[in-house]
């Protein structure tokens, strides 16, 4: 709970963003930083960012924490919401109500799915990799089973479509929601008992138990929140594509981990900052879009992502803050 807002990682990520934007001006021209282009990137970044936040939570909780089931749960929550929502409202008669019902069901599914992960990791004591690997297959499998493998169309539902794409005062609603959630999560992690205990737990789970932290409940809550974040991502994906399918964004598992590692979240647990994840997700989106603008092959992008992940792992071995710290307030004297 170090009270400093600015740290080396944050500065580094901001720098990466700035470099990409400046580079884009030279490489593809000002169109890249135009309003529409920015809005388009903002709508794309939300779902990835939410999944990355889930990965960050799981990693920060330690004990080899990782959440491989995020995107599977996002898709599953969309699929189940699609199947159940018509029981309560029809899209043609009451589109607004339908959307709320859809969102509510998704989130309930997300929370339930997350709770399954949380129970397995917290109460049953499974290694997070095994638990989330199993649930990833389970969630995916159920989504495939329920849909027979094909996409389910929502059709054009104006409120849902607006949610995914409509900018309010220049900011797409889905992006604003992402920022709102990130902000709330940041507050929770920084200024609540849960948040502070989470990072302590991640840095040493044995000591956490000895110190009287309810370790099992902490894991349960953490994975449940991750599940909920995934379901919000699921809603955004459903809104953006007007359909739900079991295999949307299969590449997101890796990209979410990449974002988290880039954001300085330690895979061993105990450290991670929401703002860094948000900025890191933005950096990744900027690069991804820049590659598209530059007509670079998408395979090259995969390759670049892999190398970038390795690069950031290497960078975390070198103390970057030394070079990036503009000024560190050294408080005089001692306690």
């Amino acid at each position: 709970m170090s009270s400093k807002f600015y740290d080396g990682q944050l500065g580094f990520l901001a720098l990466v963003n700035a470099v990409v934007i400046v580079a884009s001006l030279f490489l593809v021209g000002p169109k890249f930083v135009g309003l529409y282009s920015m809005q388009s990137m903002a709508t794309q970044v939300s779902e990835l960012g939410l999944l990355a936040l889930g990965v960050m939570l799981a990693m920060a909780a330690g004990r080899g924490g990782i959440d491989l089931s995020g995107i599977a749960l996002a898709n599953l929550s969309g699929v189940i919401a699609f199947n159940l929502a018509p029981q309560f409202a029809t899209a043609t008669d009451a589109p607004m109500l339908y959307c709320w019902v859809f969102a509510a069901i998704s989130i309930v599914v997300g929370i339930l799915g997350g709770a399954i992960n949380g129970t397995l990791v917290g109460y049953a004591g499974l290694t997070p990799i095994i638990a989330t690997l199993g649930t990833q297959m389970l969630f995916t499998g159920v989504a495939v089973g329920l849909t027979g493998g094909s996409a389910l169309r929502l059709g054009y539902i104006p409120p849902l479509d607006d949610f995914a794409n409509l900018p309010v005062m220049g900011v797409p609603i889905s992006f604003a929601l992402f920022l709102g959630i990130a902000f709330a999560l940041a507050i929770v992690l920084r200024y609540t008992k849960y948040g502070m205990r989470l990072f302590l737990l991640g840095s040493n789970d044995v000591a956490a138990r000895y110190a009287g932290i309810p370790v099992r409940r902490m894991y349960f809550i953490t994975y449940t929140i991750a599940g909920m974040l995934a379901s919000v991502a699921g809603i955004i994906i459903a809104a953006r594509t007007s359909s739900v399918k079991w295999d949307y964004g299969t590449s997101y598992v890796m990209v979410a981990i990449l974002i988290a590692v880039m954001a300085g979240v330690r895979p061993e647990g105990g450290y991670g900052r929401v703002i860094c994840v948000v900025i890191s997700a933005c950096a990744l989106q900027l690069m991804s879009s820049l590659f598209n603008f530059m007509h670079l092959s998408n395979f090259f992008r995969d390759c670049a992502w892999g190398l970038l992940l390795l690069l950031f792992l290497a960078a975390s071995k070198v103390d970057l803050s030394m070079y990036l710290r503009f000024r560190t307030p050294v408080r005089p004297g001692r306690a």
Partner: protein
Amino acid sequence: AADKEIVTVVKVTGENWFTRMEEGVDKYGADTDGITARQVGPAKADAAQQTAIIQDLIAQDVDAITIVPMDPSALEGVLRRAMKRGIVITTHEADNLQNTQVDMEAFDNHEFGAHFAEQIVECMGEKGQWTSFVGSLGSLTHVQWADGGEEYAAKFPGMELVSPKNESFNDANRAYEIAKEILRTYPDIKGFQGGSAIDVIGIGRAVEEAGLEDRTCVIGLGLPKDTGPYLETGAVDSIAFWDPLDAGYVMNILTKMTVMGEEIKDGMDLGVQGYNNVKVSAGPGEGIIVRGQAWVDVDAANYKEYPF
């Protein structure tokens, strides 16, 4: 004036089918003054990645986007926004898509399916068990072929359709595994109708391994070079396809006409074999559907004439 930029977005980059299509797109770009044409596509057949690419294209303010959708329903939203920004949208293999100005189909999909079934029925001697494959149930055209085939074969009481519309997910190995399963479950099966372009490869391999080349009839969409070895052994009896090169070329012709505001009329000749007398009908949305008669039948005798 600056060149108009038409970008073709395909399901996935790298597959032979779309590599051939890219040749058509490039050829059109080279043939036509005032147009730059290029093709892009995701690294993985993933609807989300395709959407992301289209979104970035919209941000780039290209003049027109022509799309072979991975999953048409996933694109409605993004395409509507593109059209709102004045970008011309045309599509291929998506005659159910609402937010498009022109959808180009190489032929009537039901007729194409019926054409397969016709050959199968004849080859099987009008009786026995048969089955059909699709890339995925989400691939509308594949489903239409399967339906078209089913309707045609229903006219023959001896024909028994078993386990219809198996999904291969555009994966030859998966098609192979399913074909083996089917052979085991229905030992007397005689006919296979392929869906995606690689289904026949998988089915052909399963048939060949079981030593059933002569007893079975395998017919479906396929590319000559890929399917060649199985056509030789008779494991695959015949394939049909439309030339993706021509399709890419024609898609761009139609797109350019739309960009220039030219009217596309029923019975027009687009100057490409198979598209000399296109049929125009209203689509499910505002747009129109343009159909050619561009399929090509290929068997062991003539597959070498097509170098792709």
